[in-house]
């Protein structure tokens, strides 16, 4: 099953959308030939529907007449922090979803998946703070949800994601600094951003995060229009993060724009790969479950 973003966008609240995506991923995982089994056995857990049947410990069943599934070190100890960039540029998207909405769907689905397997999930939304915010948060962090794994916690994460709106400059580097601090010991940090950063400090911040031995995964989300630049008419382009603007003939600068964009994508991917940061570049017209499935499959194979 593949979830078309246009279809997904009509599905209403983020909870429904994220759950749908998660279900899609699960179905995909069951079909997948890849079964990672690399981590150490840690404990038994009573079987619940949705657990892998192949993880049922048949010896324990023989002894105790109850289904137990094996828990592994990785799974038990995983702390995952979702860092969502909610800068102005993330609000772009004239298709089914904005980049931020897309990021929220992906983040929500991941939150579901992670909490399902008992992992602790935290959320950090990067951006300038809401004017009515009463929380005391450092610079660059608009919202923060600490690590937890309960279903209620997931609902809180989803609620915050749904409430996020893209505005203001990119403050991702500051948010990443904050995330590094909050994640504490070794954790999985999943960053969802377009990486459009006028200060160009996001990549060093990602590398720094990685250097603190966190497992860093970047979902670099772009709108199809940003990748293809399909405009024809003369246009005054307005910045979504500051007051810069420019008039241009898109047809005449398309070639040059595409070159710049390609250089940016390749450059950031290459640079982050060198620092062992995994990068998944996603366009918002791709099915989110398909994207996540590929991502998980790749991680399991690794």
């Amino acid at each position, binding site marked *: 099953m593949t979830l078309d973003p246009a279809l997904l966008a009509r599905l209403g609240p983020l909870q429904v959308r994220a759950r749908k995506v998660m279900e899609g991923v699960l179905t995909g995982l069951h079909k997948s030939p890849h079964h990672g089994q690399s981590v150490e056995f840690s404990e038994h857990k009573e079987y619940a529907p949705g657990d892998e049947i192949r993880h049922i410990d048949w010896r324990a069943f023989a002894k105790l007449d109850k289904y137990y599934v094996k828990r592994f070190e990785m799974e038990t100890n995983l702390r995952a922090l979702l860092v969502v960039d909610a800068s102005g540029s993330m609000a772009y998207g004239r298709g089914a979803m904005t980049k931020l909405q897309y990021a929220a769907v992906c983040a929500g689905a991941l939150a579901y998946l992670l909490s399902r397997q008992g992992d602790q999930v935290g959320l950090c939304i990067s951006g300038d703070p809401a004017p009515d915010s009463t929380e005391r948060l450092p610079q660059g962090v608009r919202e923060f949800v600490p690590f937890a794994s309960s279903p209620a916690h997931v609902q809180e994460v989803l609620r915050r994601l749904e409430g996020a709106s893209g505005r203001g400059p990119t403050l991702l580097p500051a948010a990443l600094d904050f995330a590094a601090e909050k994640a504490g010991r070794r954790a999985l940090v999943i960053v969802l951003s377009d990486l459009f950063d006028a200060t160009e400090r996001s990549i060093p911040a990602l590398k720094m995060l990685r250097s603190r031995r966190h497992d860093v995964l970047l979902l670099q989300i772009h709108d199809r229009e940003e990748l293809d630049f399909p405009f024809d008419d003369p246009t005054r*382009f307005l910045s979504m993060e500051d007051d810069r603007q420019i008039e241009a003939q898109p047809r005449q600068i398309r070639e040059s724009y595409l070159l710049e964009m390609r250089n940016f994508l390749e450059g950031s991917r290459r640079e982050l790969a060198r620092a062992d940061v995994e990068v998944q570049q996603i366009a918002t017209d791709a099915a989110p479950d398909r994207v996540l499935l590929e991502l998980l499959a790749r991680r399991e194979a690794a």
Partner: protein
Amino acid sequence: MFQFAHPGYLWGLLAVALPILVHLFNQRRPRPLAFGAIEFVLRSQRQKARRLRLRQILLLALRCLLIAAVALALSRPSLKPKGVLTAQASGPQATALVLDASLSMRYRIGSKTLFERAREEALAALDRLGPDEPASVGLCAGAAGFVSGGLPAPSFDRLAVRRLLQSAQPTYLGSDLTSCMTAAAKALGESPVPGKRIIAFTDLAAHGIRLDAPPPLVPPPAGAPPGTPGLKPNIVLVDAAQGSQLPNSAVIATAVRPTASLGARGYEVVATIANQSAHSASGLQVSLKIGPNVLAKGFVDVPAHGTAKKTLGAVLPAGVVTGRVELAREEAQGLDEDDGQDFVVHVPRDVKALIVDGSPSSLRTRDEAFFVEAALAPARTGGRIVSQTLDADAAANLTIDSVDVVLLLNVPAPPKGFAEKLRNAVVHRGMGLFIALGDHVDPDSYNDALGDLLPRPLHLLKTAAEPGAQDSEDHAARFGVVEWTHPLFRVFGPAEREGLESARTFRYALLKPDPASPAHTLAFYDDGAPALIENRLGAGRVLLYTSSASRTWTDWPIRVSFLPVLQQAVSYLASALEERSPAPAAVGAERAVQAPQGLLVAQVIGPDGKPVALRREKQDEADATAGPLQLPGLYRPQVGPPKGTPHEDLSLAFVALADPKEGDLRRVDEAELKAQLGGAGSAQVAASSEAAQGSHGTPLWSGLLLLGALALLGEGALTRR
């Protein structure tokens, strides 16, 4: 100053507004768009902004240029020379197409002659005429101007004009383009259409154009008040040679004359070769053809714009000989028609003479025939005359069938049989008879024996002075009246007549008066007595010399004048005179042909084997005038009795030569020509009529189209980037 053939198309220039509108549309107020990846837009735009603006402007300019160039080209602009009168007719024009059909138009460049090119141009010009433009066409050749005598008034019968053009052929005549254009201007006056135009298609050779003539003027309309000046027509001279130089070499003259160095019937042919080009020609091959055979060949170097003579020698057969001097051609282009010239030469035939010696002597100088034999010796006649000397008795028994001339020198009255034989030969065979007197001659018995063989009967002998006596020189008779134009005496120039007049005659025969006699006296003594008298008898002639052919009665034989007269007399009597070859006729002229006695000129066959038009002064006249002769080459008259079948008489053959001026294709000075035709305002010279017709100036549309194409290419290159 610009002018346009189709000014309506200039409205197309308004289309220039289109690219400007497109440009403005592109420059309109842009739509705002909040865009995430503005960083990259900014970076791209910074690089491109300046180049883009330049390209925009360049594109706009190229598109405007493209449209403007096409619109302008469609309107067929041309650059009008300065000072053009605005009085020039615009709108429909009565058009006279004058096609130069002179010999020089046969000049070949590649596979086409100038005439063929000119004819194509003329047909194209005819097609381009508007439906309201009447046209007339004339072939300009010959002294009369147009071939057909004149140019008809312009008419709307386009088909007839076209047919005339399509069937037009070049002539071998010269042309007078100036008078043709004057005649054309006159013909244009008969058309009511106000515009008048002459388009002449010519090689612009200087020989056909008179620069000192008044310019052609269209006469004022019939209703105009007296004193109205004529109108200058628009004149377009279309250069069939398209400005190229036309080098040519030609045989312009041929002279044929006997030469003693080649023996009997040896002739030298002197050909004058002209080289009408800017480079000297070396090693031109000249050949002499008699009939189909090449008898001699030679090479000649001719300087640029100069002439050279080449002499070729040959021994010709007796009779009327027709031949040709030819240049061998190697170049691909040129005028072939003047590379050779025909000639006719009358080569005298050999004469067999029988000398009947009436008073032979063992002492050579005393012999009656001594001086005659000496005069007819092969060394002196070039072997043309073969003589045999016999005494009277031997001669009387000889068959004289093969003898052309018999000379009776102081022969006693011949016996009846011999006289009859002589008479038959003279009357029927055309033999010649020369009679000289002496001491053996008795007038009465001579009259009896020879009868009508004598031009007039002998009367008695007169002794003017005794030879050797004192004062005999003073009393002796001299030649008085002499018919100098007669073939016998033709050889004497005024300075040489003294040689004849100084001869002294001591004794001679007087003749009986006979008013009815047809005999013709060629020379008289100073006392009025005939000295040489001729009579035609049947087919032959008899010549009587009333004194002796030896020194017994006269000292003429020792005078220098005796020898040529005797030689001429023998040739004359044998009808083998070294006749002067007929002078060549000119192509385009007429030629009078005189029929031999009793015969009628039936027809004259031209070089192409077809009879030439003949004209007679009177209905039943024997002579005729042939012509005008259209072709260069040999013409062969045929003569015959009034009601019999005619036969060719080569002795009347003559050659017609083309005007050597036609071989000189040097171009007329264009500036002078325009000035002569009424100034650059009304006359122009063009390589094709298309360039000139309808417009009068340098055409610009092809350049504009090229400009438009370049703009299109540039526009394409810019937009593809």
